[in-house]
């Protein structure tokens, strides 16, 4: 099939029109959607919950011996079962090596104090959460206080959010938590005041919003303070006098994959 000059020009013209039209249509109907995040979140007079993890203190404690006080407290608080199988693992707060937690800071020769050392990871409660943009049922969304919430009543288990999250902070319930092996979870459910989840929903850290509502600190922060390590700090980013803002003023902090523009709200002091 030969394309003559006339046909070719028509085709090029139509394609160009269509291309320009699509850009204009998106600008009209969904302005700003195409651009990656460029704006810094501004204080809106409301609270913006954030966490600061003092890795110096945490790693000092780890040097004495394995410490999982915060993880145990979280699992206990939120009825997170152990399936004894890494593929079905449910993770709200967990540990990974420095190189895995900060893959975009690839120093060939690392400080021995952090090389291969376990870093705490949890949901970053991003200011521009990509998980919320992709959720088709709006079962995950950002609250006004910055917490990225999840509504298991509404989750259909499509796992788009898990694909969108650059931090792997979300876990899927492959099995029914009630059917978790009894020998691994002898006293499950551990917290009678908190629900379990169902098979087929996604879950993650919620900064213990149910505890915040009662004026308590998140379970991990409390557990860390209880063992007198005080490596986890929680507070309001919008308050310039808050404990975390003071820490961030005094110490050098890094965030995970900040270059993606999701504005994580978990800071690591190193």
């Amino acid at each position, binding site marked *: 099939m030969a394309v003559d000059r006339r046909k070719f020009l028509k085709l090029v013209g139509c394609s160009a029109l269509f291309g320009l039209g699509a850009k204009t249509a998106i600008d009209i109907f969904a302005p700003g959607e195409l651009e990656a995040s460029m704006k810094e979140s501004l204080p809106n007079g409301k609270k913006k919950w954030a966490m600061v993890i003092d890795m110096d203190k945490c790693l000092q404690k780890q040097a004495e011996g394995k410490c999982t006080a915060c993880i145990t407290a979280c699992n206990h608080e939120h*009825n997170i079962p152990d399936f004894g199988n890494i593929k079905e693992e449910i993770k709200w707060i967990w540990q990974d090596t420095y190189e895995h937690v900060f893959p975009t800071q690839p120093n060939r020769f690392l400080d021995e104090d952090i090389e291969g050392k376990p870093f705490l990871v949890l949901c970053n409660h991003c200011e521009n959460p990509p998980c919320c943009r992709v959720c088709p049922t709006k079962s995950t969304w950002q*609250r006004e*206080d910055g917490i990225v*919430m999840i*509504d*298991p*009543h509404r989750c259909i288990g499509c796992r788009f959010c898990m694909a969108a999250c650059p931090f792997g902070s979300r876990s899927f319930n492959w099995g029914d938590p009630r059917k978790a092996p009894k020998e691994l979870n002898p006293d499950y*459910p551990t917290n*009678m*005041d*908190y*629900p*379990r*989840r*169902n098979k087929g929903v996604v879950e993650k850290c919620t900064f213990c*919003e*149910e505890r915040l*509502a009662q004026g308590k600190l998140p379970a991990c922060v409390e557990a860390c303070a209880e063992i007198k390590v005080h490596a986890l700090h929680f507070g309001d980013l919008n308050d310039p006098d808050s404990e975390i803002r003071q820490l961030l003023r005094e110490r050098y902090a890094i965030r995970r994959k900040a270059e993606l523009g999701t504005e994580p709200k978990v800071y690591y002091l190193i």
Partner: protein
Amino acid sequence: MYDGGKIIPGLIIGLCLFLSPFLYNAGKAAKAPEPELTAKAKKAKQCVAPTPYMKAWHMQLLDTWRHEVVRDGNRYYNTNENLWWDYKFDYKLLEDWRRFVSGTMEENQPPGRAGKIYYKSLQTTCLDCHANKSKFCDQCHNYMGVTPYCWDCHIEPKENK
């Protein structure tokens, strides 16, 4: 009719089998179960809303609570903001409810109109009082043939049976 001697008895037997459950249960209407109150619930006298309302609309109340708690982070319920008083979003429900309690409005007012604060939670507030889930919730739900999936996630209290 060919083979009438087989077909007609066959039809009669078939009809009898079909009707047997109805004949077996004829005249024995299953009694509607009465929800049993625990000592704590009896002592409290008043639920978060008047009993007739709770009987008819507890599911709507729980649904509203669920929405307010999860979506809005609003975890406390004041009996003052009572449902039929200023029911903002479902006027049909409001009208149904008004008809339902017409004539008994006075005695169904919330206690003192002063307002009592409750923590909105099926698991820790409702079932704290109604700890006897099998006698309070389940037998009625079974009678009505409804299977609410609340308990897939929310944990029921341990009962002494």
